[in-house]
């Protein structure tokens, strides 16, 4: 009798050990091997090295480096903003036009109303948050599909920008203190990079170190279960759009600083690259999950590659094709990894 009990106990614990071992193996596979997590970083380094060797006089210069970093900071901010609703399971196709809108609004506040910089900045950020609130409300409370809602809002905003500006850029009356921020450097690095760093740290803090970030992941993972652990799913979705909109608004202010004005066409160039970066970002650092560092790496990887190609004398159309292909591959890869991740 005692014999049997001991035996079955031993068998039980052996089975447990086997299960645990199997679980360890599967867990490692799930978090992704090192190579998968840093594949994009390595690819980035390889591409950079390749162009640096091939084009030592044009690509591998301080000027080009500053150019890429300066130009891409706003895109990186928009990409980071885009992942907030994406984590909560919602698409936002209005990110580009909201950037355009907040750029024009900020430039107009400075130029036509001679507002102080901080007021103009608040106008841009506030307007971004307001559009986000509208999107979030329609999607969460009225239950309208996010793609349709944000596509509609984007189209309306594009029209309104056109109405307000007559298609003309706002170029006068932008204070020099703001444009200095856009073009100058601190410690040899473009000042916009510091702004990007601030946004990145903020978003990373929000996603990884506050309950709100956890709630976003929970809602994106399973809204029913989120409701049944006491989360207010609608409010969380709305907030994700509001914070995202405010960050884009901040990006809009920075865009005014960089351009020294407001160009009504600005928004058109941001949607696809930002989504490409967000999805490509979900394939690295933390595969299967939208994440801030991955998104930043993706932005600069795409920009560096495009810059290298352009400096190699490749035709203009290549950039479009490259960005489009990157988006398609990134979406496919991150969906695949996400599925593997979720079993």
């Amino acid at each position, binding site marked *: 009798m005692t014999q049997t009990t001991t035996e079955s106990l031993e068998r039980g614990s052996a089975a447990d050990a086997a299960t645990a071992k199997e679980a360890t193996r*599967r867990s490692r596979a799930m978090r992704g091997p090192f190579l998968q997590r840093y594949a994009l970083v390595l690819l980035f380094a390889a591409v950079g090295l390749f162009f640096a060797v091939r084009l030592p006089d044009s690509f591998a210069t301080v000027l080009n480096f500053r150019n890429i970093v300066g130009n891409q900071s706003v895109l990186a901010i928009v990409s980071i903003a885009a992942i907030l609703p994406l984590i909560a399971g919602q698409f936002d196709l209005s990110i580009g036009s909201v950037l355009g809108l907040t750029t024009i609004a900020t430039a107009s506040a400075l130029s036509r109303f001679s507002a102080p910089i901080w007021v103009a900045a608040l106008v841009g950020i506030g307007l971004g948050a307001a559009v986000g609130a509208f999107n979030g409300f329609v999607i969460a409370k009225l239950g309208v599909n996010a793609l349709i809602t944000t596509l509609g809002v984007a189209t309306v905003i594009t029209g309104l920008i056109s109405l307000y500006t007559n298609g003309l850029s706002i170029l006068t009356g932008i204070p020099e203190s703001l444009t200095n921020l856009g073009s100058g450097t601190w410690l040899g690095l473009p000042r916009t990079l510091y702004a990007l760093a601030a946004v990145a740290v903020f978003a990373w803090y929000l996603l990884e170190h506050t*309950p709100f970030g956890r709630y976003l992941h929970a809602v994106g993972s399973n809204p029913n279960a989120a409701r049944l*652990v006491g989360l207010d799913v609608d409010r969380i979705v709305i907030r994700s759009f509001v914070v995202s909109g405010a960050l884009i608004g901040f990006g809009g202010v920075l865009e005014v600083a960089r351009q020294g004005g407001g160009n009504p066409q600005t928004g058109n160039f941001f949607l696809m690259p930002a989504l490409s970066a967000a999805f490509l970002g979900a394939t690295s650092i933390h595969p299967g999950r939208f994440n801030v560092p991955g998104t930043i790496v993706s932005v600069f990887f795409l920009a560096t590659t495009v810059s290298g190609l352009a400096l190699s004398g490749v035709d203009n159309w290549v950039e479009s094709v490259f960005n489009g292909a990157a988006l398609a591959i990134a979406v496919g890869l991150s969906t695949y990894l996400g599925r593997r991740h979720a079993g």
Partner: protein
Amino acid sequence: MGPDAVATSEPGGARDVVLRVVRVSKTFPGTVALKDVSLELQRGEVHALVGTNGSGKSTLIKVLAGVCAADPGGEIEIGRRRFSASRFGPADAREGGLHFVHQAPAIFPMLSVAENLAIGRGFEMRPGGRIAWAEQRERAKRVIARFHIRAEPDIPVGFLRPADRTLVAIARALQDQEGEHEGVLVLDEPTASLPGPEVERLLEALRRYAAAGQTIVYVTHRLEEVLRVSDRVTALRDGRVVDTVATRSIDELGLVSLIVGRAVDAPAPVSRSGAPSVGAALLVARNVAGGPVASASFEVARGEILGIAGLLGCGASEVLRMLFGDAPISSGELTLDAKPYRPQSARAAMDAGLAYVPADRAADAAFHGMSVRANLSAAGVRRYFRGMRLRHAVEKGEAGAAIRRFLIRAASDEQVLSTLSGGNQQKVVLARWLRDTPKLILLDEPTQGVDVHARAEIHDALRKAAAEGTASVVVTSDFRELAHLCDRVLVMVQGRIVGEVRPPALDAHRLTELAHFTPETAP
């Protein structure tokens, strides 16, 4: 020659056998689901199939549908064709004219009746790949008339009454029978989610089809429907046919005896005079109603494990959701700790000290792509947010403690939930709530799809929680589990609590008996 031919072709003449099941068995590893089951279906009869969960009804239906191969040896005979039961496939079932309509029929609510009838069958076409809408509508009209459906061809099916939706599904299944009423219609719990008057209407329609010569197999838990609609009834128990009897020769008591396998008494009415144990009651519900719950009155004591037994659609799951603030309460009173309690959301219920483990883990409880740790903290992340940041180390420590305490087999707290076995996922969901010692935990099918070992561990966890003062309300269709786990079990039938069973009378048989009786609709 002559008289013979007349006798067989004449409807309503000598009843011919449409389908015969001969000595069919089905063994699953470890259990015998069907043992030497034989059954005959006569043309134009409504043949009811009754039995408890696990009696073999579902397996028999699956064998007939050809989706589950029986053990070698048995036979299925349709008309003059004989099949070996072990090789009877879905194509054979279709060719033999067997049609299955399930509890939630596969209809498309946004499409019209005509479109629903055409889907899967094919539309009336014109050359060039265009749908011939006029012909389509005409055909739909004929089918609607033939099956007595209250509808027009162009109305979206979602706008129809629930019973008519089921009839559309039935019509779609039967519309192409060559003769008016060839083949066999198998209905699996068709009324489980239908409200009262709709049930009436469906049964009426079924009687009419049968009178016209349609053979129907009717699978249900609801014995009063069996008595009203069927001609004969076959009872299954533990995989064997107990008996096949003519319905008019049996009553509800007799049916329950067949199902349970022993003589039974009519249930004693619930004693309401018993003074409530004042002070000990944690939760008191008085005439709580809403949705399918007509009226529920009960008490839950501190540290008690209370079960609610009931059949599919009885409303027990909704009682849990109402208590957790996730389903509307239309009337009645609830008190928790002697204070009025009326939760408007899950959050409010949680703040009051309640916890809820839903029946469908994948859809309602699991965060699949997230770590075990994040899943454990899902109901209370906020507590780790101190000094403006999440204390990941504290969270990790507590997750590790929960993993050990609830015997969760995971490599680490970082492991993604969906890579755990079902039993371990369920333990994570349970641990999410139990580690905070809630006042009351509501559990819907807490061990569904969980292996025996994990099930025992889950039971242990609930008993330990009870010892610490946590009360549990457990709803499950596994009456053996209720009898084994609970201190006391309420029986719910059609939205009402009709009885209460305590030890020593508490066993699965007693619960089955009570759950099958129709309540007298008390005012």
